[in-house]
């Protein structure tokens, strides 16, 4: 009952249980944080707007993305993964979500930013429905914790419109 094996076993089990408990509590503490993020996206320029040889529309945009996401960081946050997606509907598809740009914010200091960028990923439609298309731009963020549950949320900005003709 008091051999080395028993003691080592009891110690290890106890240590692992405590570690698991601490990870769970760390994750639960994330719920205490009430974030208040803000963001704005402005389309600075439509670089070009074409119909590809296969018949799909493609657009290239330059965006100005300004955001303050500092309130999302807690002590249990490893990084924030943010991305901007264009959302729109077409006659054939009830919903289309196309990711245009993403970034990883590794620490709170970098979470307040304003950047000019063209779309990192190609904005291609399934079809040729993009002329005069109204669409929303959403800024999504995923909080990746040091341990535990991951959170995600978004800000939807509507009112953007593509030009009537190809350029």
């Amino acid at each position, binding site marked *: 009952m008091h051999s080395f094996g028993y003691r080592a076993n009891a110690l290890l089990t106890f240590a692992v249980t405590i570690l698991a408990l601490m*990870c769970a509590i760390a*994750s639960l503490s994330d719920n205490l944080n009430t974030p208040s993020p803000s963001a704005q996206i402005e389309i600075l320029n439509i670089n070009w707007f074409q119909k590809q040889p296969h018949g799909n529309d493609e657009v290239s945009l330059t965006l100005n993305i300004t955001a303050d996401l500092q309130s999302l960081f807690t002590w249990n946050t*490893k*990084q924030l*993964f943010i*991305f901007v*997606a264009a959302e729109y*509907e077409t*006659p*054939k*598809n*009830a*919903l*289309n*979500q*196309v*990711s245009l740009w*993403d970034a*990883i914010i*590794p620490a709170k200091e970098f979470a307040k930013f304003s950047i000019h960028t063209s779309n990192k*990923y190609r904005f291609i439609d*399934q079809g040729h429905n993009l002329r005069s298309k109204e669409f929303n731009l959403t800024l*999504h963020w*995923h909080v*990746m*914790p*040091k*341990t*535990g*549950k*991951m959170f*995600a949320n*978004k800000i939807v900005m509507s009112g953007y419109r593509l030009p009537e003709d190809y350029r």
Partner: protein
Amino acid sequence: MGWIGESIESVKSMKIRDSLFQFITLGMIVSSALIIWKGLMCITGSESPVVVVLSESMEPGFQRGDILFLQMSKDPIRTGEIVVFNIQGRDIPIVHRVIEVHEQRQSGEVRILTKGDNNDVDDRMLYAQGQFWLKQEHIMGRAVGFLPYVGWATIIMTEKPIIKYILIGALGLLVITSKD
């Protein structure tokens, strides 16, 4: 002569009873582990409720050796979700993020495109020949939680199977030689 035979009989039967008891205990341990695993599969709705991250394609968020807790619900997949999927012809599941979703109006089917955070290009190259999109049925689960470093045990045992055999051998030896 009679009582020697009797005592030998009693010793033999005790040994058999002990070893049977240990065998049953081992069986109980294995069965409970299986019950817990299958139970988790039911609760989370995913074929594999816990996966180990094997590649660096999601760094710096997920490193090799981290484990992810998965859940699968009937809610349609949306961009930004981290999903685990299988490609035909590959046996290891891939953990990447969804970057494009097209949901068809009539059938409700979704077409999904994924990409690893640390990769420069999307996953079209990884999909099967002629496959340009993933569908909801290819997705095994969404990642909802994460624990760092715990998966290294699985990685070591997969990459150096010697260690797996040594461990099982040592455990077996421990079970057989323990006196109670």
